[in-house]
């Protein structure tokens, strides 16, 4: 070990003698010297493009410039810069609300930040991932990528057909090296080496006084596969974005849906999407089942969320049963139906002033907490007449809890998400619901501006809590409203995103390629056997990898041990030892 340290010291003394040289320059110089020494041995060990200095100015003329530009674009340096820009460019989109994610949030942000909004809008900061500049970065990157892959693939195929280069003159210069002397004849050693290398699946051949072998081509193949897979993923993703569609629908137990635009509650689509491409199918929500943890720290956590449906493919398909769960969508011909949410829909019936039932519906209410406390509105628009036979409209504000805490417990909020002790609280209005104005109305909210509240005997607002089956009488013979029972509803998202299969294929290819590229070493091994001056054969073995690998010396040692069995060290132990101890000197002489 001490020997080593002095060597290092000498090395450094030499280094520091070259004054005025920056570490970078020194590195460059060493690399050049090294390349010169290795000759062809290290060439084509990968298909990475040679780095060209950015400073090399092109020959004049348009074609010259175009070629120069292309070379720059496809250089690894520019790929690096583009990659860096890509990650930099993605940042604003994560900090500023995005239209593609939440338009409401963008609106709020714009109202709150009036000064920066115009600037942000100019810079397309509310649509970063579809902005001109972000697209420019990734399109350039992928042009660069294609421009890089195509020549590299050609080169790689060329390399597959060619043989590993011959041994460099001085094997001692290689990263891993060993030597010994043997009584076996040089030809025998070379033959044994060739056989051994081939047995270990090296590609090997004999050149002059040495055997040249190479292994690990899969690294290059993996690397190319990875980069190709990136392109596949990008194209698949872009296709998906442009042609996708996504819509939501709330369905009460027993009701159905058929996949046409008019049936959706809300609908979004990509810019090249065509409504004709909605896959024809329909389904009915037969039953929604939700069960909840009743004990332990997770009390109230949903254990099971299942929507049992009957669906039919195409316009006249045979009905089939299916169960949709959270994380387990129903897939119909490329369209996916996701279970997004659920809630309760109390069934209420209304009798008018003449005692005639004019309304009976399950009214979906929206949950406002995790125990499914729900609110909403009941709107009786048509058919209602008061006791004088005059047309009127009724509106009720509904507040529903599936599990009531009990009278006098001081809370109206639900205690548990299952319908253990359902209670519906109502207060009523009559007058104009305002639905005729033509303005879109929120079905879950009551606009009471043109309505009058029903009053109870004391002149307070009429309010009542109902258990299933109970009825609230409206004052002055205005009729009654009955809480008949409970249905459940579920919301579904129906999405169509073409090419996601391709995206997945690309992703798997990328991982496989990457593993090959990063875990496989491409390396060359040379075995030289020559007769020394004293008639004893000198065997030299050396290895070279694309990058320094800890495994290379290990592998070389293994190979040497194997070869050594066939060409054992000559009896003259002492001199052999000495030889391997000081290879540098030996090489210099």
């Amino acid at each position, binding site marked *: 070990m001490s020997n080593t340290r002095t060597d290092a010291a*000498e090395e*450094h003394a030499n280094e*520091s003698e070259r004054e005025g040289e920056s570490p970078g320059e020194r590195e460059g110089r060493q690399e050049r010297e090294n390349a010169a020494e290795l000759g062809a041995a290290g060439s084509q060990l990968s298909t990475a493009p040679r780095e060209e200095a950015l400073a090399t100015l092109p020959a004049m003329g348009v074609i010259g410039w175009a070629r120069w530009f292309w070379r720059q674009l496809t250089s690894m340096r520019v790929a690096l810069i583009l990659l860096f820009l890509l990650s930099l460019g993605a940042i604003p989109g*994560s900090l500023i609300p995005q239209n593609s994610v939440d338009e409401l949030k963008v609106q709020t942000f714009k109202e709150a930040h009036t000064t920066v909004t115009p600037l942000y809008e100019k810079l397309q900061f509310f649509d970063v991932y579809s902005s001109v500049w972000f697209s420019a970065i990734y399109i350039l990157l992928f042009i660069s990528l294609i421009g890089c892959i195509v020549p590299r693939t050609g080169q790689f195929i060329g390399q597959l057909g060619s043989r590993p280069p011959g041994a460099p003159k001085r094997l001692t210069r290689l990263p891993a090296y060993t030597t010994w002397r043997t009584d076996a004849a040089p030809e025998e050693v070379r033959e044994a080496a060739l056989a051994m290398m081939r047995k270990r699946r090296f590609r090997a051949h004999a050149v002059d006084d040495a055997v040249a072998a190479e292994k690990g081509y899969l690294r290059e193949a993996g690397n190319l596969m990875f980069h190709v897979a990136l392109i596949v993923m990008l194209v698949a993703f872009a296709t998906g974005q442009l042609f996708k569609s996504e819509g939501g629908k709330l369905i009460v137990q027993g009701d159905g849906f058929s996949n046409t635009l008019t049936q959706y509650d809300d609908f979004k689509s990509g810019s090249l999407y065509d409504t004709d491409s909605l896959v024809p199918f329909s389904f009915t929500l037969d039953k929604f089942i939700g069960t909840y943890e009743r004990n*332990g720290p997770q009390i109230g956590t949903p254990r099971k969320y299942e929507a049992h449906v009957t669906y039919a493919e195409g316009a006249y398909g045979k009905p089939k049963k299916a169960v949709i769960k959270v994380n387990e969508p129903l897939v119909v011909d490329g369209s996916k139906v996701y279970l997004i949410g659920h809630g309760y829909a109390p069934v209420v019936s209304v009798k008018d002033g003449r005692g005639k039932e004019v309304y009976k519906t399950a009214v979906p209410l929206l949950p406002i907490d995790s125990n499914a406390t729900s609110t909403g509105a009941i709107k009786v628009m048509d058919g209602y007449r008061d006791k004088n036979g005059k047309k009127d409209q009724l509106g009720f504000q509904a507040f529903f809890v599936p599990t009531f805490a009990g009278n006098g417990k001081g809370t109206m909020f639900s205690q548990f998400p299952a319908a253990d002790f359902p209670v519906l609280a109502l207060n009523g209005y009559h007058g104009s619901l305002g639905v005729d104005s033509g303005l879109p109305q929120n079905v879950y909210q009551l606009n009471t501006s043109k309505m009058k509240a029903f009053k109870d005997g004391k002149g307070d607002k009429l309010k009542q809590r109902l258990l299933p089956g109970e009825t609230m009488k409206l004052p002055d013979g205005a009729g009654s409203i009955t809480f008949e029972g409970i249905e459940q509803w579920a919301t579904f998202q129906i*999405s169509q995103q073409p090419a996601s299969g391709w995206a997945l294929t690309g992703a798997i290819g990328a991982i496989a390629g990457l593993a090959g590229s*990063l875990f496989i070493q491409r390396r060359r091994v040379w075995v030289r056997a020559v007769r020394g001056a004293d008639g004893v054969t000198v065997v030299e073995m050396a290895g070279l990898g694309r990058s320094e690998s800890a495994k290379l010396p290990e592998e070389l040692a293994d190979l040497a041990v194997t070869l*050594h069995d066939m060409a054992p060290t000559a009896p003259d132990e002492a001199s052999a030892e000495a030889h391997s101890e000081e290879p*540098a000197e030996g090489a210099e002489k």
Partner: protein
Amino acid sequence: MNLAAATNENLAHTSNVLIYSSMAVYTIAFFAHIAEWVFGSRSKVGRTAAALTGAGAAGSSPAKIQVQVAQQGGATAVLDRPKIITRSAAGSRDVPDGPGAAGGTFKGDLWGRIAVSMTVLAFLVQAAGVVARALSVQRAPWGNMYEFSITFSTVAVAAYLILLALKKNVRWMGLLLVTTVLLDLGIATTVLYTSSDQLVPALHSYWLWIHVSTAIICGAVFYIGAVGTLLYLFRDSYENKLANGTEPGSFAQSVLSRLPAAATLDKFSYRVNAAVFPLWTFTIIAGAIWAGDAWGRYWGWDPKEVWSFITWVAYACYLHARATAGWKGRKAAYLALIAFGCWLFNYYGVNIFVTGKHSYAGV
């Protein structure tokens, strides 16, 4: 309260006690490491430095002499295994590795061994704490930032101990690792602590196990890579100073001279980062598949997704930089640190400052 709930309360309590105990043991390990470094400094640690700066230069020939480090083929050397001469490839300085924190002193080494043993013990206690937590909440122990933090540092220590068990030269990172684990646990138990909490239904999927566990492993290994990179930067400027004939400060002299050579550290962090990059790629893809199942789109530029992507691109940048001449060494190292910074931000920054679909269970 029923029986089951009480058991869970007890388990949660046990978990907390275990985590606090592990912090105590880590503290012992911390002081043992300090002792190791202190005793190590009393040895002739200036040795390497002295050798590098002057002494040996006198008799050297003007021709460039390459250092060739002779070493046995492996730790489990067979007697008749040939001697393999290795030489570092183009570009890097051939400086031998430092002797390690103990500096070759007996006492230093003893303290170092105590530190490692304490780290093993602390790790076992901490791991038990994580398991107890998982049992108490009846799900994977990474539903909120507190759980993620304790699991994260457990895995980081596990990675370190595995490397040690594989006889890799990693003892030099012991002190830094234990220090940051203590910091992490300190923040976790004080700022981030959340009592056992529920998960929203979207988190109920086996992808939770796959996606988050690989994310934690990636983070832990990236962290170890980042430690290597950071020390590489220090050690590299130290070696540069020596090479230029500048005298490094005495603290740097004592501490940095005992670290492995810059080239070794650089290689170490490259290997670590490169090895886990495919897993990180997988983590993102697993997340996308899960998002596809849970939210109906596999990629929606949610802040968490964006920052995973940024982290991924940043590490790809680093790997490219390593493969491109002119960007090797320090520049690539800065990229690696930026990439790890992105990972950290994705975890702490995004959870705390940015709201998105990934924000649940409080913090």
